[in-house]
């Protein structure tokens, strides 16, 4: 590895590779209310084939989108690939440390902090532990942007390509 990761701008390839390699996402700060941003993101990711594992002590024991809500990352019995953080930048530090402690046991590969959430010190600790970190982004927006779906709403995806995308059966 050469040099530090630039958290001000991630290449499309970096984000695409991460989103393509991840299959399960623990969502910390998951809301059971249908009109909250975290619910929108979980619903979208689940529809795209990701398994979502909601974490929220205040909704523990409930279900969100058919998945049991856990008190903490440690309480999730299965492995999961990525942690998506819907908490503020400060709390994101503690969530990151919890993920670092669990990373081998649960096979965690990446930490994703939502739009406006950024904690550079936590990111440095996670990267030192071998985890990939994305901050101040939304996985729903990035998935949609890189797969032309964001463009359907008139948004500037900044993706330009003359390649024909493969359409697979699914």
């Amino acid at each position, binding site marked *: 590895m050469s040099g530090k990761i630039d958290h001000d*701008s991630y290449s499309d390839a970096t984000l695409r590779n991460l989103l393509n390699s991840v299959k399960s996402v623990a969502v910390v700060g998951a809301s059971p209310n249908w009109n909250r941003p975290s619910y929108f993101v979980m619903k*979208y990711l689940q529809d795209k084939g990701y398994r979502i594992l909601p974490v929220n002590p205040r909704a523990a024991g409930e279900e969100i989108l058919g998945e049991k809500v856990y008190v903490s990352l440690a309480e999730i019995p299965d492995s999961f690939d990525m942690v998506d953080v819907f908490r503020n930048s400060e709390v994101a530090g503690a969530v990151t440390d919890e993920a670092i402690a669990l990373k081998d046991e649960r096979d965690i590969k990446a930490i994703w902090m939502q*739009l406006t959430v950024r904690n550079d010190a936590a990111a440095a600790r996670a990267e030192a532990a071998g985890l990939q970190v994305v901050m101040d982004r939304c996985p729903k927006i990035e998935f949609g942007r890189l797969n032309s779906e964001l463009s359907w*709403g008139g948004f500037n995806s900044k993706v330009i390509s003359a390649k024909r995308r493969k359409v697979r059966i699914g």
Partner: protein
Amino acid sequence: MSPKQDKAAEPKFGFETRMIHAGAQPEPVTGARQTPIHQNTSYVFHDAEHAASLFNLQTFGFIYSRLTNPTVAVLEERIASLEDGRGGTCCASGHAAQLLAFFALMEPGDSFIASNRLYGGSITQFGKTFKKFDWRAKFVDVDDPQNVRDALTPDCKAIFVESLANPGGVVSDLEALSSIAKDAGIPLIVDNTMATPYLCRPIEWGADLVVHSTTKFLSGNGTSLGGCVVDSGNFDWAQNDKFPGLAGPEPAYHGLNFYETFGDMAFTTHAHAIGLRDLGSTMAPMNAFQTILGCETLALRMERHCENARKVAEFLEAHPAVAWVSCAALPSSPYHALAQKYLPKGAGAVFTFGVKGGYEAGTRVVENCEIFSHLANIGDARSLILHPASTTHRQLSEEQQQAAGAGPDVIRLSIGLETLEDLIADLDQAITAASR
């Protein structure tokens, strides 16, 4: 949630590449390279759950073409990319775009500040028709920024100007106006129809929203009405309590807060999901297709439009029967310095002049032209000529006409792409015959 521009690390493609490619990848099912015309009203849902997600705005996708359509979406992304904005919302006309822009911002009883030198149709829309919604336009001379500051009131929700104003070659000081808007916590809206994003990109100077009549230079051949609102994604709609439509609970979506949920995509999402849904001023897919074709050659056309216009203006300024020429490309224009700052590639193709002999001689010039078409439009490949006071600016009082640069002796030209010498010869014979 604070506004956030998408921070892609990819190399930024040049303007000409984006005017051809932005928004339009090959169609994945057939491989069709040119954008298909989706002449289609409605879209099949995968299942009930998918339908519910779409109606709740939880997933991206098409429901019904009053809101979004795949062909129109290509044009929206194309224009948003050319303006360096976050998203675009196309609609039926330039006037529809202006209504759509204000619709998200205004409540009954609110006011906004507008330049008194706008295109006459805009002055009428704002001053007369908007009144019926109890939206109050205050027209001020924005050349002196102090006039704008003095006109600000707590109920003021926006400042609206044209980057380059129709008809008279008036250029707005966008940087100064944007700093006033920022201090007041309200967006600066810029009508960029006459300049196009090739000549001026208002967002780079601090504009928050850009509106277009795509009817003009973007479509470029006089075929299709259309409009677009581009959102920069930079405005913080929650910085004060002025914008409950965007940063408060939305009753039409069960209390959804657009800014909290969609961040820098809030305005464009709102403009489709509420604006177009309820105002119904949708752009037709065929018009979007024609305008997509127009965008592909925008840079080339604008270069020639500007060059022809500057040379015609120079010819007229030297003509013994011409009383005056108002064109920001000429050093004689009071707006020349602003044009060099904001429109360094050219001061557009539309300007005004007056002949000696006033109104009577002016109308004879219009009628004597052979190549210039006498009609009420601008931004066509063809050269156009018009007498604004009796047509486009007819609804205005004489005082408003004077302020807008459309007094009784004013003739407006929109210079096209024909051979320069033919245009000059046509005007020369028309003026000479009219002065006899």
